[in-house]
């Protein structure tokens, strides 16, 4: 283990003062001279052919500066999976057909928002309604309406994983368990509604400020949809009011703002209102999961056969990755001698689902962990013991996919059992009360290059100055998780500087290094952290050489960078300050500034991730006999995220994860009728408030991940996975109702309870 001085401490987070006093600028706070306001006309039908669009009245309205339909813009399909162009299935504005209620048909820019809104009502669209499908079953049924012509069975992605002899393993199993689980969609509920502002200069270049987690992806896809060169498009991420995975694609308002700015010569802003955001913001995939698992007599897993259908909505969005990932999550916790996965991404006439915190894991892990709990009970084995028997360990190989590095899973299980007194509570049941368990394993970034970038996965530029400061530039996007703090912490640690010596600039495609696919899949700390270390080491090479020459050290001397000084370990009296060393190094190089670039791309890391994180969680509930309401008393969590770079932020991520997952388990869901989302306000969408939160106790199992920067790996995203199965298990313990279709509503509890 390394000793750290900046890493592992709760330094004041970068920009947190700006946020506290209200000067931090978010996209909608941007106001430019002459700025126009954009609004979007959306489809009122879930599936319809567009027969005609008449925009003449809207164009004639006083104050309207621009109205566009698909006829006015390049007809270019886009999507994040550039490696497979056939997966790119969206046009910016509907061509010929609309596929969900809210699908974009036309856009207006006007001198104020009210006029733009009024103009929408003057656009006449003639539709011919088509039969629509709103769930997996009807979409894959014979004779189902075809949503995208190239996919007559409405399945756009197949993903298969297989190892071992599944049939044989199941046939020889002592105990086989087969279950079907259904999980629902949730709204990411970032507090900042999606927003974009575009400006164009008279040389024709575009600047777009947008609430995105992935500025580089937006830059590339905006350029391709506009028919421009990437370097002529600059994308800047201002402060971001939460993303949770839902802001990681080019969105249509990005394009409309940029295109109309170019057309009118004026800045254009689009900000979604909350109802609109509820209707068309990206949401979590509903899934149907069929799982069959086998065990030996003494509780060793023999095989797992997992089939998952993802309800993708009308377009692929990040569905292909979710399809890929939910199959990986199916085998990351336990040792399966044989495993088979078949994932299918299904089109329906609903708003597209995409990457929402956990990215396939909350769904897949609900299935894995619920089934482990069922199996444990039926086999008469303590659920924690059953897990310990089968838990993956450091050095395990997942055939053809990956190898597990640091792994604190078993220790997490032991710790959470102890913290929660799980075994005792199970032995001495109290009427109406229950405890339940769930676990997770998560990725620290993916390794598969679906975006087909020619750059490294991430890169960091570091500049150092004679005043003893450094400037780090990275495309990593701080979306509230704290990467603007973690990256300079890692740099300060490696260069022996203090936080206040580091300036950080991130997420501006004209300034910060291309590469870096943004903030999602818990990739930033590991990947951008490693790139930062790479850059810092290059800086040290330069400075150490200069210091060696300056003091005429024998070449066998070993130098060190610590406390703002550079010196020989053998002659600590011979010392230059960091700034002096920079000045000397610069003079050696005839005044050239010292600028380096570090990068990271996972190579030879298999097909899943460079590093796995783990955790175990116990939920304690009390269920009201009369109302069926589940009162969550306490959550106990033990997790392994490697080295904690900023412990307070790790706790904060964990806390937030619990809130989101409690909502997923108990209260949050979309109410839909014929493809229309009916609950489009926070009043009707039941996201936990401060009074709904339970007590929470947590602990970190400290491991050191060799592939991570200074031992760190994922934190806070995987934790969205164990909560729902833990709560469902606790509800079962209390009531005898085993929930296999989330969420656990009072109605379901009352209908299915067996105890009391």
């Amino acid at each position: 283990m390394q000793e750290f001085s900046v890493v592992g401490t709760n330094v004041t987070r970068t920009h947190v003062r700006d946020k506290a006093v209200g000067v931090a600028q978010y996209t909608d706070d941007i106001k430019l001279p002459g700025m126009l306001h954009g609004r979007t006309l959306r489809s009122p039908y879930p599936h319809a052919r567009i027969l005609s669009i008449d925009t003449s009245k809207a164009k004639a309205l006083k104050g309207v500066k621009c109205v566009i339909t698909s006829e006015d813009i390049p007809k270019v399909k886009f999507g994040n999976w550039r490696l497979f162009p056939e997966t790119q299935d969206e046009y910016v504005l509907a061509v010929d057909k609309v596929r969900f209620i809210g699908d974009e048909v036309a856009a207006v820019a006007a001198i104020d928002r009210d006029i733009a809104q009024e103009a929408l009502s003057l656009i006449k669209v003639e539709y011919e309604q088509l039969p629509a499908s709103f769930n997996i079953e009807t979409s894959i049924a014979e004779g189902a309406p075809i949503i995208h012509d190239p996919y007559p069975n409405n399945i756009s992605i197949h993903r298969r994983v297989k190892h071992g002899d599944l049939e044989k393993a199941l046939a020889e199993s002592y105990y086989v368990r087969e279950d079907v689980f259904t999980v629902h969609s949730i709204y990411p509920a970032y507090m900042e509604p999606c927003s974009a502002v575009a400006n164009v200069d008279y040389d024709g270049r575009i600047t777009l400020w947008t609430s995105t987690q992935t500025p580089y992806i937006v830059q590339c896809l905006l350029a391709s949809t506009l028919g421009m060169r990437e370097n002529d498009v600059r994308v800047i991420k201002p402060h971001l009011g939460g993303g949770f995975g839902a802001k990681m694609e080019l969105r249509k308002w990005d394009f409309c703002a940029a295109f109309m700015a170019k057309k009118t010569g004026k800045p254009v802003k689009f900000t979604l209102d909350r109802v609109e955001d509820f209707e068309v913001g990206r949401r979590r995939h509903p899934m149907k999961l069929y799982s069959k698992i086998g065990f030996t007599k003494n509780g060793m897993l023999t095989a797992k056969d997992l089939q998952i259908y993802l309800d993708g909505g009308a377009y692929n969005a990040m569905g292909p990755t979710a399809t890929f990932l939910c199959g990986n999550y199916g085998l990351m916790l336990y040792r399966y001698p044989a495993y088979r996965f078949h994932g299918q991404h299904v089109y329906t006439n609903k708003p597209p689902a995409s990457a929402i915190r956990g990215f396939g894991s909350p769904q897949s892990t609900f299935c894995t962990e619920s089934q482990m709990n069922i199996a444990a009970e039926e086999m008469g084995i303590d659920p924690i013991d059953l897990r310990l028997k089968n838990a993956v360990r450091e050095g395990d190989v997942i055939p053809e996919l990956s190898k597990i590095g640091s792994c604190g899973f078993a220790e997490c299980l032991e710790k959470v059992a102890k913290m929660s007194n799980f075994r005792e509570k199970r032995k001495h049941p109290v009427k109406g009360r229950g405890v339940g368990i769930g676990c997770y394993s998560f990725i620290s970034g993916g390794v598969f290059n679906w975006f087909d970038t020619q750059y490294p996965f991430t890169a960091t530029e570091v500049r150092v100055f004679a005043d003893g400061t450094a400037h780090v530039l990275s495309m990593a996007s701080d979306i509230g998780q704290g990467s603007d703090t973690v990256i300079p912490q890692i740099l300060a640690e490696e260069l022996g500087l203090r936080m206040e010596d580091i300036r950080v600039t991130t997420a501006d495609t004209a300034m910060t290094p291309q590469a870096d696919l943004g903030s999602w899949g818990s990739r930033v700390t590991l990947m951008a952290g490693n790139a930062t270390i790479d850059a810092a080491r290059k800086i040290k090479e330069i400075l150490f050489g200069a210091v060696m020459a300056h003091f005429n050290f024998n070449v066998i001397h070993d130098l060190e960078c610590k406390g703002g000084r550079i010196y020989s370990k053998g002659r600590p009296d011979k010392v230059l300050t960091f700034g002096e060393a920079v000045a000397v190094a610069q003079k050696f190089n005839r005044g050239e500034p010292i600028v380096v670039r570090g990068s990271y791309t996972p190579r030879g890391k298999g097909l899943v991730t460079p590093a796995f994180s783990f955790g175990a969680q116990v939920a304690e509930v009390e269920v009201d006999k009369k109302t069926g309401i589940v009162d969550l008393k306490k959550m106990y969590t033990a997790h392994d995220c490697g080295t904690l770079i900023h412990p307070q932020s790790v706790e904060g991520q964990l806390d937030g994860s619990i809130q989101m997952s409690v909502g997923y388990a108990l209260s949050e869901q979309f109410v839909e009728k014929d493809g229309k989302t009916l609950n489009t306000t926070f009043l009707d969408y039941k996201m936990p408030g401060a009074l709904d939160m339970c007590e929470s106790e947590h602990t970190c199992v400290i491991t050191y991940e060799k592939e991570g920067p200074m031992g760190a790996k994922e934190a806070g995203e995987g934790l969205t996975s164990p909560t729902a199965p833990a709560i469902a298990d606790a509800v079962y313990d209390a009531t005898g109702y085993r929930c296999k279709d989330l969420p656990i509503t009072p109605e379901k509890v009352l209908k299915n309870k067996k105890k009391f």
Partner: protein
Amino acid sequence: MKQVITLKVNGDSYSLAVEPSRSLNEVLREDLNLTGTKLGCGDGDCGACTVLVNGRSVSSCLTLAVSVDGKDITTVEGLASGEDLHPIQEAFIEHGAIQCGFCSAGMEMSALNLLNQNPEPTDEEIRQAISGNLCRCTGYYKIVDAIGAAAKKMNTKKTKKN
């Protein structure tokens, strides 16, 4: 037809001609460029737009600007004096109560509203006081801690003054 109103915001008086349909939130953000106050939903459900009017918290998205003519309005920009942050802001920073920061202004104003009326709130009273402010990042835990710590800071300050 526009009406001329006077708003006293963070101690400064502004005479403004506004349409009767405009919300206080729009006037603060668009006319006065006080963008620290956010708009999260426009329905009064999320609390991101919370400001104080004559010392009591309101949702600025549901408050018509003309209805607060002549009244004292405090926004998040009115909390700090220069580089000296308000104890609530200090506590939010120290306790990790701010992640993405979008709910922070509203949370801080609801905290101020609470502490103005109840200088020594229990955790339950704090939770009650911010039950109209939604946050997706923190699970509210560190916000509750921060408000408790702010109360102590403010009480210590008062004691010192006395």
